[in-house]
């Protein structure tokens, strides 16, 4: 660049009106400093609000439960009876219902979800995956109340008429598949609804995990003559199993927390029954069903206590999932 032109540019920059005027420049700097720190504080306020919201939730749930906490202490979790009419409360039956429905649904959803994750990440042509992937995720967007409505009028009758009796006659030797019920509202139906909610979560998360496997690893296995299945087992699942486990745990977290769709199809009878075809109740479904019509202050406090049990279960699941995916993460 010609020297004359360059010097002309520099001198024009030097005579730039805003920069040459010292007072204006100082004002600009002051404004920038103030606005910068304002934005910083505002952003900190937003971040702090998120943290404080979580603390406030924990505090509020504990303080709402204080009456039941002082009355029962930790033994509340081991008490089986829940009868508001006589004023006896315990979480055991609800904890049982929550765990049974969640474990059953996650067991089924893991198989389906991981299979879909494999399909989307490794099997399907890119164009097919670009259509099927969002469709599966859309399954998670269906509101739980609509899924519950479909549960009442489609899934429960279907389970009652087409599934319960055959399953009982074939697998009746397993206590889980006891004698069929009469209405179709049962732990089994609730689990089925939960499967629909959990599958998209596990599918999306495990697909993302599978996509992180370097293609060299897969191609190396293929070059050794491995079949598709052997590539999946040897190169994909063996390097990603911690991510898959974390995905299943997040699905489990979703299953234990669902209240509305479950309360619509589970039958709302607080009991412990080994039979999946019997009606039941979960922590969330009982709160959804009874919270607006408490019979006593202890009843309300006991429901807050149930919420506390659910919260502890949920936080433990989430933290464990985080721990698994970070500490047993990639061994690559």
């Amino acid at each position, binding site marked *: 660049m010609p020297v004359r032109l360059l010097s002309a540019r520099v001198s024009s920059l030097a005579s730039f009106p805003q920069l040459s005027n010292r007072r204006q420049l100082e004002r600009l700097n002051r404004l920038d400093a103030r606005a910068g720190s304002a934005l910083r504080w505002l952003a900190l306020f937003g971040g702090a609000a998120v943290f404080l919201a979580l603390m406030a939730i924990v505090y509020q749930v504990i303080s709402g439960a204080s009456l039941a906490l002082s009355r029962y202490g930790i033994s509340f979790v081991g008490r089986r009876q829940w009868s508001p009419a006589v004023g006896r409360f315990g979480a055991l039956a609800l904890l049982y219902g929550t765990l049974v429905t969640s474990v059953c649904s996650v067991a089924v959803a893991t198989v389906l979800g991981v299979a879909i994750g494999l399909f989307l990440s490794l099997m399907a042509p890119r164009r097919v995956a670009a259509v099927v992937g969002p469709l599966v995720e859309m399954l998670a967007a269906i509101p739980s109340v609509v899924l519950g409505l479909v549960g009442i009028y489609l899934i429960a009758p279907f389970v009652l008429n087409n599934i319960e009796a055959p399953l009982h006659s074939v697998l009746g030797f397993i206590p889980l598949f006891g004698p069929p019920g009469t209405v179709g509202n049962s732990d089994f139906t609730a689990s089925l609804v939960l499967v629909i909610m959990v599958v998209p979560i596990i599918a999306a998360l495990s697909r993302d995990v599978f996509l992180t496997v370097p293609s060299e690893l897969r191609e190396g296995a293929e070059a050794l003559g491995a079949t598709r299945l052997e590539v999946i087992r040897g190169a994909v699942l063996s390097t990603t199993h911690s991510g898959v486990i974390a995905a299943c745990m997040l699905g489990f977290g979703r299953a234990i927390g669902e209240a*509305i769709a479950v309360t619509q199809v589970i039958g709302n009878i607080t009991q412990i029954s080994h039979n999946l075809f019997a009606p039941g109740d979960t922590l969330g479904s009982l709160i959804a069903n009874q919270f607006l019509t408490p019979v006593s202050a202890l009843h309300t406090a006991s429901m807050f206590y149930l919420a506390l049990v659910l919260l502890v279960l949920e936080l433990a699941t989430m933290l464990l999932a985080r721990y698994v995916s970070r500490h047993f993460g990639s061994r690559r």
Partner: protein
Amino acid sequence: MNVHASPDPAHALTPSGNLRRRMVTSRAVVAVTVLAAALAVSVLFIIVYFVAQRGASQISVAFFIRQLPLVSYGKVTGGIGPAIAGSVEIVLLSTLIALPAGVLTAIYLTEFAGARVAAPIQTALELLAGLPTIIAGIFVAGLLVAHYGQSAYAAGLALSIVQVPLIARTSIESIRRVPASLREAADALGIARWRTITGVVLPTAAGGIVTATILAIARAAGETAPVLFTSSAFGTPYQLNPNQQVPNLPVEIYNLANSLNPTAVSDAWGAAFLLICLILLANIGARLWLRRSERKRGL
């Protein structure tokens, strides 16, 4: 050892024995994954079809404007006008809280926070994302409803707890994807930090933030558990005073679904059809918008 005959030219590459078994199991597993994906997609279509089949016939202008019959549910179907208006109000209030909170959190975590401060906020965000929505409801019930009664404000606050992690998480992702060259160009020009954030980073990440907000609105519109204890009005006439409980679509569906009256149930299907259409359209729209805005940015 197994001695093979000289290769038959007609079946030269047909696997046999062990290899054949491995191929067959592999193919079976591939078939299972295809079936699983097909099952999930067909369940989606069955649900949408089932809702559409029962709900579409309800859809009319009157259904969107009128209110539910006040006293008895005869053969006359009602309408869901008040519930639509109430849902719009609640979700608007919620988004007014959640959008600034979520975006500010994202800005703090990506632009300002040191690792030590960021870690607890990040963890809190993840835990909030997994929080059972019924606990958001019971939290606000204990915090506000126990003292001031049910209100649209309370419902908005409960829904915002569901929305904030959704908005924050996607905003963080899209802010992190702003090309470093843009920031460096701004730095090289000596532009102040806050001007870079508001003038370069946020506009570039806007596509992702808008997408996240649309998805969060769609999510909040369908959530029942947070509003069940905070704004459980059902079958009331138009009511928009935010200090009072307002009727809304999810609670209306929840209550109508349990009704023994078939006319009431068909109203529930109508409301469910409207809700599911809005939510699926919002989902599709948000995805298309994101794709378009990313293509525009050359990402």
